[in-house]
């Protein structure tokens, strides 16, 4: 009976895996860079070598299991040593390994040695979002898990039917979409300088075969030369705390012309923001922008209604109702589990802090961008 149960469950598993095979890839992606294709080839080569060795070894074993069984009346031989044989089966694997090591070394050196990059992007990991800076272009922004994925997650109380619906609606991009995409031009060698602001993250884009740890206080580099226009997705690949599973990467590889347009747009927006930071803002403007920023950046820990979760409650807290100095300080510099948000612009910081001080029934003072500038 038990055997029967196991059998059926195995069959069901097999059948559904067939379906799965049809629908999704079982294997490593070949990616869209030369390096990623080399790696794919290497992977397949080693895989087939293992398969062949496996067939030989398991073949011999199962042959013995079938042919040399007592129930068939097979009598045991008595040999138990053969220097020649042992010599051979030490030697052959060594040769096989050398044969594998040669292409592997070549690929590795290709990956690690970069002659000249066309452009540089600095990638900084934060708990739990990525920050991208284009030092040469003077562009920088933060990339958060998109609201649509968060909504699905928040639906977890709603019962499985509703959740399932929301999930299906977001499809393959569930947990793999972000608000601000990283944009890079096609056929361009991009050098990524990767670092972190808090714990170790790892920046992984399978299609580029780029995965590199982001170590706080150190810079690592990686590079890619994408050859196909499209949108590519990846995830953080090093356990970095509670929301490690929720800091994806989305990259748009665009034509060079489109890239130039995008850069100009970004630079325009940055200039506008710089101007905005010097003027006085109305409380309403601050509150409006602050709410959006709060919900993307802070609500994960302090909750949308400010009642606190992983981080303490903001609603009714001393810090949000007393003098603004401490409040500015903790948001800009962080403290223990509270990450630093100094990478946000002055107006954004002013907005989010004002929002914390005036929403949820708090009665703290309004904070202007100029206050942030001087508090930095």
């Amino acid at each position, binding site marked *: 009976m*038990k*055997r029967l149960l*196991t059998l059926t*469950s*195995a069959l069901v*598993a097999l059948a*559904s895996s067939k379906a799965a095979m049809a629908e*999704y890839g079982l*294997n*490593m*992606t070949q990616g869209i860079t030369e390096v990623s294709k080399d790696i794919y080839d290497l*992977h397949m080569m*080693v895989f087939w070598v*293992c398969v062949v*060795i*496996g067939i030989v*070894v398991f073949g*011999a*074993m199962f042959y*013995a*299991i079938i042919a*040399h069984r*007592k*129930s068939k009346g*097979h*009598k045991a031989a008595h*040999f*138990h*040593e053969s220097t020649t044989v042992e010599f051979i089966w030490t030697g052959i*694997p*060594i040769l096989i*390994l050398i044969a594998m090591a040669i292409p*592997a070394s070549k690929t*590795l*050196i290709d*990956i690690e040695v970069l002659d000249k990059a066309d452009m540089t992007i600095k990638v900084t990991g934060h708990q739990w979002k990525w920050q991208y800076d284009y030092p040469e272009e003077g562009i920088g922004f933060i990339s958060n898990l998109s609201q649509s994925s968060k909504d699905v*997650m928040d639906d*977890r109380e709603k019962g*499985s039917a509703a959740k399932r619906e929301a*999930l299906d609606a977001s499809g393959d*991009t569930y*947990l793999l979409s972000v608000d601000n995409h990283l944009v890079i031009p096609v056929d361009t060698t991009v050098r990524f300088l990767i670092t972190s602001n*808090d*714990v*170790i993250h*790892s920046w*992984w884009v399978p299609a580029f075969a780029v*995965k*590199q*740890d982001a*170590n706080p*206080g*150190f810079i690592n580099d990686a590079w890619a030369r994408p050859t196909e226009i499209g949108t590519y997705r*990846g995830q953080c*690949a*090093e*356990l970095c705390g*509670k929301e490690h599973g*929720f800091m994806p990467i989305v990259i748009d590889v665009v034509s060079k012309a489109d890239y130039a347009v995008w850069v100009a747009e970004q630079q325009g927006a940055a200039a506008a923001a710089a101007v905005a930071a010097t003027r006085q803002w109305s409380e309403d403007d601050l509150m409006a922008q602050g709410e959006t920023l709060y919900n993307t950046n802070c609500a994960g820990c302090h909750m949308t209604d400010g009642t606190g979760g*992983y981080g303490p409650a903001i609603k009714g807290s001393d810090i949000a109702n007393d003098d603004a100095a401490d409040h500015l300080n903790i948001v800009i510099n962080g403290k223990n589990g509270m990450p630093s948000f100094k990478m946000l612009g002055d107006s954004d910081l002013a907005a989010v802090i004002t929002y914390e001080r005036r929403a949820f029934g708090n009665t703290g003072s309004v904070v202007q961008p100029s206050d942030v500038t001087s508090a930095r």
Partner: protein
Amino acid sequence: MSYTAAHDDHHGPEKGLLRWVKTTNHKDIGTLYLWFAFTMLLIGGAFAMGIRAELLQPGLQLMDPQFFNQLTTMHGLIMVFGAIMPAFVGLGNWLIPMMIGAPDMALPRMNNWSFWILPFAGGILLSTFFMDGGAPAFGWTFYAPLSTTFAPDSTDFFIFAIHLLGFSSIMGAINIIATVLNMRAPEMRMMDMPLFVWTWLITSFLLIGAMPVLAGAVTMMLTDRNFGTAFFDATGGGDPVMFQHIFWFFGHPEVYIMILPAFGVVSHIIPTFARKPLFGYSSMVYATASIAFLSYIVWAHHMFLTGMPVAGELYFMYATMLIAVPTGVKVFNWVATMWKGSLTFETPMLWAISFVFLFTIGGFSGLMLGIAPADIQYHDTYFVVAHFHYVLVTGALWGIIAATFYWLPKWCGKMYNEKLAKVHFWWAMISVNVLFFPQHFLGLAGMPRRIPDYSLQFADFNFISSIGGFSFGLSFVLLTYIVVDCIRNGKPADARPWYSAKGLEWTLSSPAPYHSFNTPPSRATILEESQHS
């Protein structure tokens, strides 16, 4: 020559529960270890069921991501330090004195302490679940600074638990070394020793070399967390990657600590049921020693993506690949032992064969991971999870289960129910593959490890894996029944229940007497029972 207990009237165990607290007897202590390990296996397994239940479907259904990370972390820690390692120490305790013709372990009182530290360490570790901020949630590899600057207070308890576990392992290893080197029957030479004894001796050297380094690593964590040092903090000139070097200098030998004794077990079972001496006894010994040596110089294959210099990556890739050679020698020797044997397939043999088969698959994926450029795509995905469960579950755990069925008649003097045991074997064997094989595909398709929720393209394989997991978990209920049933109602077993089994332990009665050998065996007996005769 004869051996005596402290008081001549004391040849049997004491009565009552206190016997287990006070005991210095290697069999009692072995039993304690084995039951402790089994309990921990169930606890660690229950955590794994929690993990699989959350991953059954996409979306967060059962738990908060932080709690998921706690489960993953504690699952890894409990399985490694609470289940697999103590189980092997238990087997070593039970079997080594019997296999080398000794009355007991060399340092019996210390032996007691090695065991009795464990429940306390395990208790401290498990109690972190009830602390503010919850249990450690930084993975069993506890990388800094997630485990230092960014970890809850309970981490300090975790650190002390690791200190205690390390202390216990070191004492256990010292004891085994002293026992093997000093308590062997005078007529037994090193190259007469059975392979389980050899593999454990070599494992002890791994433990003594690796565990203190782990103690060093957690000590640095402790001072970084509480006393302002800067080992793993770049602000003070330290380096978080340094933590990983120190950790893996321990961690890689650690994984061989968990597999070498299993190699030993399999090297006993296969010859018995092939009715043929072990093929290549001495090359088995040398291969084990080479694996142990190599295991100290490959650690950074876990760190290919930390930004090591290329030269380092190349070196660690080559050294890692080399391990396939001695391991291959072992696999080939097992197959050659079966070749032209007269095979029967009692339960221990089934487990041993399936060990050879599935461990080798795990070894192959290990080799793939060792190819540094390819590891860029594999690292920290479910491909790694699949790899290490193949070597740990169908390797280490399989070895433990095989050993249990093989020596159970010697331990309790009774025979288990062969029919049920075979049902259990097939159940476990099939479901474990349903559980872990699809994880290879998940990893290759891009699913990172240590995540509580995933995108929809990973849904099907996760579903299959979870179903396999529940089925495999349930199979432990049957295993428990078989073992308990054997102890209570089994039919009496012969002193040598397996036809042609070789080894001094089979010259003792079943169940084995409380003090194994009162008179050391003669040279003739030793040769008669050795693995290469």
